[in-house]
């Protein structure tokens, strides 16, 4: 069976957060729980030219991130209750009936995907709208994107078509978890681990 993954084109994203809201709406997520988040990364400064004038090189771009249904899901490996499983199609899901709410998966995920539901006392996470996927439809975030910046599909096909870049700043090194994610970087994007810019909307992440 094909492994599913997300594709994100950073050049097309305007940071409108329709994906984030569509996800919150479909799964009725409580305040503080946001499975898909739109990260704003920005930086730049004044640069001195040889003729003594200055120009600025300010940049900003967006990266829409949810759970990347990693090929090496650390959350799944460390879960003491075996509450996280990976489906045949690669989708990583949490079974809330088995979860003990220890939040150890949260500590181990470099994408901040597993999030705690205070009311139920268990972890929650993007499940790639497996109900829609099983019915042959798209995840709600993908369906909602007005810029067509977000897609999902067979990971091998996505990589064949768009390359195998799986990280830009401020995302972590892809080697850690091998995310099922393909990114077309923004023309001003900084590489993983760069200190060229900073996360501009930490309160939203």
């Amino acid at each position: 069976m094909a492994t599913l993954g997300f594709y994100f084109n950073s050049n097309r994203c305007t940071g409108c957060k329709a994906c984030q809201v569509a996800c919150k709406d479909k799964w009725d997520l409580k305040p503080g729980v946001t499975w898909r988040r739109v990260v704003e990364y920005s930086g730049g400064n004044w640069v001195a030219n040889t003729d003594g004038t200055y120009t600025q090189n300010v940049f900003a771009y967006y990266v829409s991130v949810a759970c990347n249904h990693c090929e090496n899901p650390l959350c799944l490996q460390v879960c003491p209750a075996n509450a996280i499983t990976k489906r045949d199609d690669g989708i990583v899901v949490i079974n809330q009936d088995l979860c003990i709410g220890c939040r150890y998966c949260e500590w181990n995920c470099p994408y901040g995907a597993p999030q705690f539901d205070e009311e139920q006392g268990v972890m929650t996470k993007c499940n790639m709208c497996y109900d829609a996927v099983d019915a042959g439809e798209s995840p709600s975030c993908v369906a909602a994107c007005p810029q067509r910046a977000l897609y999902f599909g067979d990971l091998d096909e996505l990589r064949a078509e768009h390359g195998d870049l799986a990280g830009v700043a401020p995302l972590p090194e892809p080697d850690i978890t091998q995310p099922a994610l393909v990114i077309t970087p923004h023309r001003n994007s900084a590489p993983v681990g760069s200190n060229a810019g900073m996360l501009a909307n930490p309160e939203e992440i």
Partner: protein
Amino acid sequence: MELHEWALVIFTTVMQMAVGAFVLVGGIHLFAARRYTVETADKLSDRALIAIGPVVVLALLATFFHLGNPLNAPRAISNFGASWLSREIVLALVFTIGGAVFAFMQWRKIATPVVRNTIALVVAAVGLVLVYGMAAVYLIPIVPAWNTIVTPISFYITTFLLGALAIGAAYVVAYWRMRGNEKAEKETQFEIVAVTLRWIALLSIALLGLQFVLLPVYLASLTANTSPAAAESVRILFDQNGVLFVLRLLFIFLGAGVFSVFVYRTAATSGATIRILGSLVLGAFALVFVAEVIGRYLFYVSMVRVGI
């Protein structure tokens, strides 16, 4: 920091103290049994041993406050094959139950001393592995402040430092509470207490030295780490919690250093009274306990993940 994280501070600190106390009380007991008689050695160590029990139960109960869904708590051991968190819990349970079985046998003098000592040895070994297991839970590749050999080393320092001073305090209290003994017996017991306290004081001073070597090495490596997560951890430790950081160093220096020197010197003098010695040991224990709790609090708040 939220309540569920305080539960972890209590659990890890107290459990490590219990492991250290169990291991050291065994060592002291064997030493005293060889020098005097088993009965003489039992008098103080039995009482100290029993004091560990409630402390461990308290530590285990604290973990329930850490869980969002405590009803599922028994499931926490499901992933023993891959998760250090499961292994930690299993080891903690084996140590607790094994320790309880041993304490009961020792109290009622069930089976021969050899059988009991063998059980104690196994429980002590499980306890020492447990301390590593506790540290391994925090060796998370995406948390630079935790993913270093300093984590297991400092957990072992807590184990032996806090364990030693706890045992020292327990021996003093046990001696205080001993009633109706003849004078010669009391003198022998006092000798055991005094010798034990001297060794505890030396151990504390040595571990304090190790701590003060380790800390700069740790901070230097964290500062040298280029990831924004490491920089944020440094900021949390110094800018945000600088006062606590200094207080912790001050308390541990006073307790494990200054007080321990006085304990060592007082225990060696012929005119030493249990009043002075006891006050010094209890003071050292209280100071180091507060220092370790602050240290563990700082450990948890310094947690910053790589990525987003």
